[in-house]
């Protein structure tokens, strides 16, 4: 079993994506040997009030419930977002996606804390992507900002009961999040999409290893399998999975067991 915690449907305004419909994505998952994928509509990041995208997601994913796991999007600045959260739960969404950079709020502010607290009370994991696209190529209409992981660490500290997944993060071992030793026992997770394991472009032998160093330091239980399909190739995450320096039990956790638990399967 392999669960991808980092996949998408829909349109990215600045570059054509392939395999971005439910049927096409499932074909791509089949080709990649991935059994299930967590999906949201990309457009929700650009909608001031993303509930219509959530409704479309629920409708479009429903026929593919065995493969695609819907995750709704909340904008904490949208009036009555609590109603959207209730609606997402009614739709069977397995988590909530937040976009501080796109909906324009602080990652450790009062607004996001309220949403994360509410999700924790409902036992829903929260997905906060570190970035959607490489900021070095961002279109002038895109904010071109990566998530502030120092602020994210503050958020995790403020809502310690929450489960928070941060797809597309890099680097990991030197991130302000891993540096916060007081947070290492809490439920937050990186994915395999971007970080390198054994060697990277850094002039220090420890920094070179990044994901490998995170594992050496005891952080393997903070790793999930994620690809960032269809923005990114699935191959990089699959290659990393094949060479991860972890034992069989930990590998099964990374492949699906931890994700299944978080997603309440």
């Amino acid at each position, binding site marked *: 079993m392999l669960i991808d915690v980092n996949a998408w449907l829909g349109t990215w305004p600045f570059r054509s994506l392939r395999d971005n419909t439910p049927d096409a994505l499932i074909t791509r998952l089949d080709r990649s040997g991935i059994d299930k994928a967590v999906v949201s509509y990309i457009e929700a990041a650009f909608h001031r009030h993303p509930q219509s995208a959530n409704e479309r997601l629920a409708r479009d994913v429903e026929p593919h419930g065995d493969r695609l796991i819907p995750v709704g999007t909340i904008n904490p600045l949208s009036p009555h977002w609590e109603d959207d959260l209730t609606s997402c739960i009614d739709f069977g969404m397995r988590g909530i996606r937040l976009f501080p950079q796109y909906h324009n709020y602080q990652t450790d502010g009062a607004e996001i804390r309220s949403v994360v607290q509410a999700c924790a009370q409902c036992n829903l994991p929260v997905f906060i992507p570190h970035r959607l*696209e490489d900021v*070095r190529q961002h279109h002038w209409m895109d904010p071109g900002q990566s998530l502030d992981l120092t602020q994210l660490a503050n958020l995790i500290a403020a809502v310690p009961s929450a489960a928070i997944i941060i797809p597309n993060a890099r680097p990991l071992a030197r991130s302000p999040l891993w540096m916060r030793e007081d947070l290492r026992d809490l439920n937050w997770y990186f994915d395999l999409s*971007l970080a390198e394991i054994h060697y*990277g472009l850094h002039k220090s*032998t420890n920094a070179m290893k990044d994901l490998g160093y995170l594992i050496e330091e005891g952080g393997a239980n903070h790793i999930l399998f994620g690809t960032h*399909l269809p923005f990114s*190739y*699935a*191959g990089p995450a699959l290659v990393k999975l094949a060479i991860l320096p972890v034992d069989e039990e930990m590998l099964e956790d990374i492949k699906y067991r931890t994700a299944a638990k978080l997603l309440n399967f």
Partner: protein
Amino acid sequence: MTLDIESGIRCPKIDMHCHVWLMDGWEQSADQLVASGDMLGITEYWCSSIIQQGILAPVEEVPPHNDTILSAMARHPKRIRGWCFVIPGHFQDAIEEAERCLDAGMIGIKLYNQYRINDPVLHPILELASERRVPILQHAGYPVPEHRASQPLISHGIHFTEASEKYPDAILIHAHIGGGGDWEHTVREMRQASPNVYIDVSGSNLDDGQVEYAVSELGVERVLFGTDGTMAGSVGKVLDADLSEDEREHIFWTNAERILAQQGAAPTELRIRN
């Protein structure tokens, strides 16, 4: 058909864009590089140590970088080959440094972002490379303006096209399609370039479709496998690209082998098929 990652990892690869740095502990980093390649089927690395950020460093600061690479080549003779880094504005000193390193066994010349590839200051370097049939690999890309500000003289596709108009026989390699920036832009700019202009797939940007785009624009014979330190990511993007096995073999091996052959060299190890 499901991707066969295990088999793809074992497939032999030449990483033509990587680094060993001039630093304390370079030996350990070189060993780490080789060990990581063992896990990914990379049989040899073409490495450089460079002066970054466009710094026009004094001439005496260049040779220690190349000496580090020569030492790494001696430490791992079957696995590490060298790119000779030079700053073309050092004129005759740059030529002499390139000749010293090529005579010592390096296989090409590495340029960073001190000058664009079409700058006339590079003409002696381009002539040397053409004469000796060695490739030039240059740091390149088309980042957005705020990221370009720190490297105003970074080359992109149009500069390679212009350089190749004057030196059509020079083997020029645009580094890292995934190095950060609008990769569609820089690749499109090379449509009219000489067939001796290549691009490598390295870099931390793993956008889906990137490799196929380079192949469709330039032809599979002009796309090279490199990592620039994004090891599993670069292997993964080529394995996942919608290409035939023959096309993948061109990228992982045959194109680099052909570049070596032009200077009378060959891969350090025979390619053993799966």
